[in-house]
């Protein structure tokens, strides 16, 4: 039977739309949501509950909907766990209910609801334990959960945008519109957000008259103000520090996006002042079987009536404890629906609305509440009983109504989510029976229903205007206006125990499948804090974040604890208010923009040379250069051979460089390094080791002295920024008396490394103004000059173990330098080498690599720096920590080399064990930190951190490598050219 009225609503009846839900075809109209279209088609059962697979119907009309959870579309565009109330209908829409099979109407797991008595909240902490939880895990995980995540990459695009304004108004209902108008007219830059397509909020379904006229005028006025930006379909979901609010804008909701246009946009808004006009959310009543399909919130029914011309049924019972429900009953009656009765849990209601309802022939019964609902897949009847002032049903007062829908209203909760996220404090309002904003901590104010103001429209508008004007003037929010409210009766649940019935089917949280009996069980099991009750029962933890359940739960828990709701308090509100797609959070930071890498000055040339490029410290660098048919290890072996026998070329521009200048520069660096920097002469360089305050090895690099007051500090590639900040921290916070300047210059200079026995001859061929002879330019010296009028700086330093020069020119000449060196080196057999090759060369030489051979526990004495530290009389950062008792232990792990039996390289991370090892558990003596198969020595070579390593030279150990034990001998790590002849050539 169709529930669509022949006229009315804000749908476009000239644009019919077809869609598929749970395998069946239906039709609706443009302007419908999926939920309104299903209701119009008389579909009562739209989903199954999370734990018990109970049939459920549409209960609400917006983001608070807990039942109509759907999986939208298929394939790459499928999206799980959307609320049908928020999905706009479009031609060809495909959706299915989640958590059921084969569909919501006929679910094979529907029998689980009969096991509710043995599956209360927290049952899984007490069952499915023996012999092991893992026996049951797979089946339980398969049975649980809601929708399915897509398995293909998201084809849609998402945008992000920053925005700033003087006044941000969240919510374009009457209060929000009034505030935005006032702020806009005062000249402030205003951004007004609303999650719906049309502004107006509750005014959209006022049946004509003054309110409608005011809305039309307000909308026109707003649009005429150039300083007001209106963003519809935009949900503010997070309120962060310093008035930073984030919102999600739906850009495209008419089916799959075409032409790569963005589907959603994440707005990041910084506002000087914020006005929250987020309205209020209706509360359900808690009584047995209140979750049947056909049971709906009163205001939702009003919403469907006026916006979609859909009625929830033809014979309706309205159950309420609030005056607002009467208006809905009257309007439904006027639309031709039979209202069987308005059953009001209060002994007294507002006389005028009762009178008006009765005058239309609507029976009104006071002091009663629903105690049961009948009909598994749609309401067939409602039972009511008289109730005592504390909500207990009175035996013998039962009455039955035949009905196809039950509407319920247990009161209203101001939507205080964003307010609470901002850090504001709530208080429990005894008159309104809800939590309302009490104390702001940021420049923010709440207006209208969001502030707990449920007064008449005129008063609400006036107060909102005042708030908007104050926000525009950047005046702090004034004291909250107090309005006299009629007394409301708290009815957290209808107690049916006097009827001999249990409350195991009195639903509180529909989405998490939590009943009032679960909440009371939690209290009996001594969970007293509302945060503990939440987590034990999962009330409020589902996708709706407890929008319709939290306050009822607080009331029920309060009764169980015998404390008022204000003392129970609320749980912590956290963003997002409504789910946000990962796509929107990622924005365009996907693909190449996900982890963007810096490019070398020679990037294009590297690609031409066929380099395999990889991310090394967020620089895109060549790993190696395979020739046709070569595998990785073959290419690396060839490149190593070039470096050892001829000459190699590498773009080493990512090496960190920091200029440190000033009369106290030497003293400063002397304090920052383990090494003696003061004694370094101009024109020379020294290897420097830097520690953290905890004594742990932080970084290493070459420190060059350019003149008396100028040093160029080298750092590990990719670390220069952090080290420069580290320097600044010491200079600005600790040693303010030192006269030192720090200037990061990593990418001011391109650096090419020429290494190999023929390096000097190639450099001479290049043609600089520098004397490159061995006597004039020894190892660890620095020289500056010109290369065709371009400044050049050359440091003779080696990480490969060969004669080596690091040649630096301004970055924009880097490509020219590379080309020139390659050309100059052709007759010497020059070959470009990658980072993998460099690592192989340095492991053969036994050179330390911070980060590979060190970790968060490595002290300088572990890597052979004891003598240097002991020789240095002056203090340096980390000295005291390095000499703590732990640092003085004789059995610390020390960096050594390993000579390996057999021809296979060890795996990095393989553990060192003694000869007494037989099987785990066994205390490791250390592990392999670097390992290669040496192309130069034709055997495996490794470095390792080994317990008391340096005292055990020559000792045999075993290495536990992937289940195999391999014999190795502890040796000095320098296996290639131990005398250093080749470096000093």
């Amino acid at each position: 039977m169709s529930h669509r009225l022949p006229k009315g609503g804000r749908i476009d009846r000239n644009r019919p739309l077809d869609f598929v839900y749970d395998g069946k075809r239906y039709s609706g109209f443009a302007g419908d949501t999926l939920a309104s279209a299903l209701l119009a088609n008389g579909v009562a059962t739209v989903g199954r509950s999370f734990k018990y697979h109970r049939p459920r119907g549409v209960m609400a009309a917006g983001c608070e909907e807990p039942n109509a959870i759907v999986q939208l579309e298929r394939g790459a565009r499928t999206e799980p766990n959307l609320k049908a109330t928020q999905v706009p209908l479009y031609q060809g829409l495909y959706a299915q209910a989640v958590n059921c099979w084969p569909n919501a109407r006929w679910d094979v797991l529907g029998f689980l609801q009969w096991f509710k008595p043995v599956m209360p909240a927290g049952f899984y902490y007490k069952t499915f334990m023996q012999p092991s939880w893992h026996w049951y895990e797979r089946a339980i995980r398969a049975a649980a959960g809601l929708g399915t995540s897509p398995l293909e990459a998201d084809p849609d695009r998402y945008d992000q945008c920053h925005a700033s304004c003087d006044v941000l108004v969240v919510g374009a209902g009457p209060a929000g519109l009034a505030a935005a108008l006032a702020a806009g007219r005062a000249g402030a830059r205003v951004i007004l957000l609303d999650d719906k397509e049309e502004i107006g909020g509750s005014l959209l379904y006022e049946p004509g008259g003054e309110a409608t006229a005011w809305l039309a005028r307000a909308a026109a006025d707003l649009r005429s103000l150039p300083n007001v930006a209106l963003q519809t379909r935009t949900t503010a979901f997070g309120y962060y520090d310093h008035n930073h609010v984030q919102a999600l804008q739906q850009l495209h909701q008419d089916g799959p996006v075409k032409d790569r246009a963005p589907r959603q946009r994440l707005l990041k808004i910084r506002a000087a002042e914020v006005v929250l006009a987020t309205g209020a959310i209706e509360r359900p009543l808690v009584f047995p079987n209140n979750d049947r399909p056909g049971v709906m919130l009163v205001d939702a029914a009003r919403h469907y009536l006026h916006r979609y011309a859909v009625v929830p049924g033809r014979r309706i019972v309205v159950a309420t404890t609030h005056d607002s429900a009467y208006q809905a009953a009257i309007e439904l009656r006027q639309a031709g629906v039979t209202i069987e009765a308005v059953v009001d849990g209060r002994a007294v209601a507002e006389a005028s609305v009762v009178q008006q309802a009765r005058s239309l022939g609507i029976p009104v019964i006071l002091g009663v509440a629903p105690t049961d609902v009948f009909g598994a897949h749609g309401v067939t009847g409602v039972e009511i009983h008289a109730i005592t002032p504390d909500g207990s049903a009175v035996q013998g007062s039962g009455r039955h109504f035949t009905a196809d829908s039950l509407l319920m209203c247990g009161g209203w909760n101001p939507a205080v989510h964003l307010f609470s996220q901002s850090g504001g404090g709530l208080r429990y309002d005894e008159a309104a029976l809800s939590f309302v904003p009490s104390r702001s901590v940021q420049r923010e104010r709440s207006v209208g229903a969001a502030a707990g103001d449920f007064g008449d429209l005129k008063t609400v508008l006036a107060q909102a205007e005042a708030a908007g004007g104050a926000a525009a003037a950047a005046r702090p929010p004034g004291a909250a206006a107090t309005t006299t409210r009629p007394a409301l009766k708290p009815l957290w649940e209808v107690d049916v125990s006097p009827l001999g019935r249990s409350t195991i089917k009195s639903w509180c949280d529909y989405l998490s499948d939590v009943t009032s009996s679960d909440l009371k069980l939690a209290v009996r099991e001594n969970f007293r804090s509302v945060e503990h009750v939440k987590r034990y029962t999962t009330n409020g933890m589902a996708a709706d974040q407890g929008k319709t359940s939290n306050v009822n739960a607080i009331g029920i828990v309060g009764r169980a604890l015998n404390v008022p709701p204000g003392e129970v308090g609320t749980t912590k509100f956290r963003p997002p208010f409504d789910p946000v797609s990962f796509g929107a959070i990622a924005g365009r930071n996907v693909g190449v923009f996900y982890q963007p890498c810096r490019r070398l000055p020679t990037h294009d040339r590297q690609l031409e040379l066929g380099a395999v490029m990889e991310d090394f410290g967020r620089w895109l660098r060549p790993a190696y250069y395979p020739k046709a048919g070569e595998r990785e290890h073959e290419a690396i072996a060839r490149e190593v051979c070039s470096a050892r026998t001829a000459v190699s070329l590498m773009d080493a521009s990512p090496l960190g460089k920091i200029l440190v200048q000033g009369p106290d520069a030497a003293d400063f660096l002397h304090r920052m390094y383990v090494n003696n920097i003061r004694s370094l002469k101009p024109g020379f360089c020294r290897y420097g080791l830097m520690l953290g305050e905890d004594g742990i090895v932080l970084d290493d690099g070459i420190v060059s002295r350019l003149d008396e007051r100028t040093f160029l500090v080298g750092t590990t590639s990719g670390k220069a920024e952090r080290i420069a900040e580290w320097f600044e921290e010491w200079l600005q916070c600790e040693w303010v008396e030192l006269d030192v300047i720090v200037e990061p210059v990593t990418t001011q200079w391109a650096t090419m490394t020429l290494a190999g026995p023929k390096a000097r001859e190639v450099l001479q061929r290049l043609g600089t103004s520098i004397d490159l002879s061995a006597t004039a330019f020894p190892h660890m010296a620095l020289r500056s000059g010109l290369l065709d009028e371009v400044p050049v700086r050359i440091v003779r330093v080696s990480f490969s173990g060969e004669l080596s020069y690091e040649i630096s020119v301004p970055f924009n000449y880097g490509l020219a330098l590379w080309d020139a060196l390659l050309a100059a080196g052709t007759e010497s057999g020059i070959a470009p080498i990658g980072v993998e090759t460099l690592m192989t060369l340095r492991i053969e030489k036994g050179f330390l690599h911070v980060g590979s051979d060190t970790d968060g526990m490595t002290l300088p004495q572990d890597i052979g720096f004891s003598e240097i530290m002991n020789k240095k009389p002056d203090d340096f950062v980390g000295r005291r920590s390095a000499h703590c008792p732990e640092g003085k232990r004789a059995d610390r792990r020390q960096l050594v080399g390993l000579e390996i039996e057999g021809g296979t390289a060890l795996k990095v991370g393989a553990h060192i064990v003694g000869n007494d090892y037989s099987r785990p558990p066994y205390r490791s003596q250390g592990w392999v930190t670097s390992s290669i198969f040496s192309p130069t020595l034709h055997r495996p070579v490794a470095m390792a951190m080994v317990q008391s390593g340096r005292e055990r030279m020559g000792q045999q150990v075993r290495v536990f490598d992937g289940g195999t034990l391999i014999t190795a001998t502890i040796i000095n790590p320098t296996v290639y050219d131990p005398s250093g002849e080749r470096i000093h050539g």
Partner: protein
Amino acid sequence: MGEGSVVFKARSALGTYEGAVGRSVVYVPGLHVTEEPLLPVYSLRVSRKLGAVAAQAFATACGVPLPRQPNTCAGTAEFASAWVEPLAWLLLGRKVPIAVAEVAPPPGIYLTELGARFCSLQLSGVRAPRLLAAAMSLDLADGSFAAGSCARTRLAALGGAFLQRLTGDTDYRLLVDVGLGPIVAEWLADAAALLIPGTIKHRDAVFPDGGSLP
């Protein structure tokens, strides 16, 4: 000089050689993003012991007075000074005064050439603020970031950037690390294509659909 004389040519982050015109990254109605290749940039720092007054005296003597307010610029379109930190400024522009390029600063004043460290992009057109809003959280309204303003900020997930609002309606100079220049250009082009319907992305530049390359 040694055996081979080498003639070196400087090349910008986006591949423009010295003397050539800067590349267009975005060229659509209302939005132009163009490279400023090989823009001269200097870092001016002063010792804490001397203070900003000494830096001001030196800079003024060089013909480039320093701005007095944080996050502002002084000077002309051809060469300007920009506040970066209380004791640090950037001097930047095509017409470098001889005093800046060739005269050694007095003790306590440090002038470091950093032109090679940056990739400079100019953004102009009514849509430029909207494009920048996709990347940075700065409030670019006239009242907050007027002509002559500058700031260091983050550029999306790409890293740090320096933004200078030049004189003129909506003209901006964006400095990013030279190593990030290509990816930043690509990112801006991608953002522009998303922002403006009817544009196409040609490799890493955006032009009107059907329009010809400039």
